[in-house]
Each structure stands twice: as C-alpha cells, then as structure tokens.
C-alpha cells in the first residue's frame, strides 16, 4: 500500500507551518491549470522534485513509489489526449498530474498528521454555527489516513483466504466476492474502533 506518511527530518520544509504548505499546494494546483503548457508543467515537476529531494531531504524511493502509483493513470491520460487532441497536450496533462501528486506527497511526508488535522479543524471552525464539530472532521481525516492501509491489508487477507481454497483472485467476479466479506470485516472493525474511541475518552456522544 503506497500511502505517503510523515518522514522525520530537520529540514526547512518540515519546519514550515502546515497551513503554509497546504496553501502552496492549493496555489500550485491552480497555477498548473491556469498555465496549461508543457514547460509550465515540467517546471512545476522539477521544482517539486528539487524541494522534495533537496530541501526536504526525502528519500528518492518515496517519490518513486508515489509516481509509480499514478503511472498507469498518467499513461492513460497521455494516450487519450494523444489520440483526441495532440501529443504535447497529452504530455502536459500527464506531467501536471504527476507534479501535483508528488507535491501532495512532499506535503504529507514533511507534515505530521496532527498538524494537518489542526489546520483542517481551524478551517472548519466557522462551520460551528451550523452545528458542525471541527474536532470530529479532524479525527475523521486522521482515521482515514490510518485505516486506508489497514482496510487494504484486510482485503489482501480475504483474497489470500479465497485463493487458498481455490477461489479466483482476479476479475470482476472475484471483486464481487471480495466486497461482501470485506464489508463485514470493516463493519466489525468499525464497531470495535467506536468502542476504542469511547475507551480513550473521545467525545462520541
């Protein structure tokens, strides 16, 4: 499971406030779409890689893993545009996607989840007037990051159990057979997690 998480370092990028990094990410996302050219996309990608590997001293493997995770989508977008519009547009769009994914990876790898959650809670604070509890949104975000790899692991275990008994592990039928036991497993997990939150003093009432 390729989920970028905090990589402890003492770099200037790590020390930047989480809110600033998220703002930069937002601006970057807007800029690459406002200037939809290949040089702009390549420049952004280069800048992200330089910041990630140079200033933040992140391991090359981390960025490569993230790049690999979206490689198929980037290739599909490139082929689609190459056929529907032209090769340059295809290349620019694919590089743009790659740059944004890597930029997001740099932000998550240099920022503790609690710092990201604190920003989200601050941003959601005005929603209190509508009865929204920002702390709950923050907790949901942190738990999503925590449980994505866990649910993927459970899906793998179910697939293994099915394969061990001669079941198919690929194709649409295998996917259907995975969904129900995974759902049951996740619901059981959710019940226990709810109890654990109560036990640790969360305000779940």
């Amino acid at each position, binding site marked *: *499971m390729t*989920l970028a*998480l*905090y*990589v*402890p370092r003492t770099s200037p990028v790590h020390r930047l406030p989480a809110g600033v990094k998220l703002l930069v990410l937002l601006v970057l996302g807007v800029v690459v779409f406002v200037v939809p050219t290949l040089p702009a996309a390549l420049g952004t990608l280069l800048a992200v890689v330089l910041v990630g590997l140079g200033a933040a001293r992140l391991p090359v493997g981390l960025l490569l893993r993230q790049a690999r995770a979206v490689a198929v989508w980037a290739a599909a977008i490139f082929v689609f545009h190459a056929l529907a519009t032209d090769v340059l547009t295809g290349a620019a769009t694919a590089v743009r996607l790659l740059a944004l994914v890597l930029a997001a990876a740099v932000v998550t790898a240099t920022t*503790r*989840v*609690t710092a990201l959650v604190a920003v989200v809670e601050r941003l959601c604070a005005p929603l209190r007037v509508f009865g929204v509890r920002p702390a709950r949104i923050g*907790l949901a975000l*942190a*738990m999503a*990051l*925590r449980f994505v*790899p*866990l649910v993927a*692991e459970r899906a793998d275990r179910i697939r293994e159990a099915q394969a061990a008994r001669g079941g198919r592990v690929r194709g649409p039928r295998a996917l259907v057979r995975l969904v129900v036991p995974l759902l049951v497993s996740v619901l059981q*997990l959710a019940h*226990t*997690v709810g*109890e*654990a*939150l*109560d*036990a*640790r*003093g*969360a*305000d779940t009432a």
Partner: protein
Amino acid sequence: MRLRRGPAGPTPTPDPSRGIELLGVGHAYGERMVLADLDLRLTERRIGVVGANGSGKSTLARLLNGLVVPTSGRVLVDGLDTATAAREVRRRVGFVFQDPDAQIVHPTVAEDVGYGLENQGVPAAERAERVAEVLARYGLADHADHPAHLLSGGQKQLLAIAGVLVMRPARIVFDEPTTLLDLVNTRRIGRLVDGLDQAVVVVTHDLELLAGFDRVLVVDGGRVVADDRPTPALAAYRALMADR
C-alpha cells in the same frame, strides 16, 4: 431493555477504596442473555478472568469501564455509576483491546499515543513530554514517527498499551491482550502487566499469564462459577473444561 437512568444529580465523590462493584448485574444482547446475577467487588490489584469462547467474559470486561452498560443492575467504579458517569469512569479505567489494530486510530505512533491526552485536554507541551516518556519506557522511542500499520504485532500491542498508560488510569482492563501474539511477545506483555503500578483485570485464555495474580474469576454460561486464588480457580476451570 436498557437501564433506566436516574435524574441527573450531583456526581458522588469518587472513593477509590470501593474498587469496582457489580450489583445484581445482568446483560442481554436483544433476547440473548450473556451475563446474569453478578454480584462482585473487585478490589485486588491483579484479577484474572477466564472462560470458554462465548462465556460472557468480554462483555464482563466491557462492563468494567462503561463500554457496555448493564441491562439490569449497576456497575460502580470507585462509587461512580458507569451508566451515568461514563466519561469519569473511563478516565479511571483504561481498556486494552484484543486487536490493537482496532485501537490505534492515528497514522503514526507518537500521534496515536497522544490521542487520549488530547481528549483529556492535556496541554501540547505536557502531552509531548508524557508521550516521549511512555514511548521510551516501552521501547518505542525509535518508532515515534513510524506509520503504525508497519509495526509488528507485538509492537502494535505495545503501542495500544502505551496509548492507555499515557492517560494514567488507576485501573486497566485487558481483553485477551496476548491472543494474537507469539510466545516472545506474549511473555513481554506478561512482564509488562506484572510491572504495572495500576490495578489490572486481565481477561485471557493464557493461563500462564495469571501466575502470581491475587484472584481469578471463572465465567461460564454468563455466570461466575468460581472465584478464588489462581491455583484453585484454574483447577476448577480445567475440571469444567475437561467435561466438554
């Protein structure tokens, strides 16, 4: 049928000498009765609970910190009713689950340990200090910023326990803490439990874990059928299971 809660009144002053009291406690899930006629006073420092699968021992464990409210009778912790003072009860009684994956709610180790303190409103500086101290004590200091899902099973259980200990509860309930662990980690958790200052209630199938305990309860069919020192209680349990 849930226990009817009385009118909100002033919370009684907690009295730690009272321990955990179960007064005429029974519990049912729908029509299925899982615990009945429990009258217990738990004041010893080391209490074990054993019983076959489905005997009701996990429900009994959950009653002790208010995760489950009894459908009849009352559970009092230091004199506080778990039905009406759940938050205060949970500050006093920590709970360690069988599957640490269900208990770890934050992506990285240090953040997860700090979670309970955040709920208690502990200031950030003190939080960081207490988290670092607990991680160091349980050999997780080098893993502070590691993703929790990449820890080994034993490390995850240590993390789950650290997340409870950092909240400094007076008592801790362990629900089968070694069931998913290998021998080395089982022994490590056993030593950890032995070394705790807190009073503990340990629900387990690992009878070795209970050596040196003060008291062992044997649960069968939703009732406590033996309640004694470990040696006679475990002998009674073995005799009970031999007939099945």
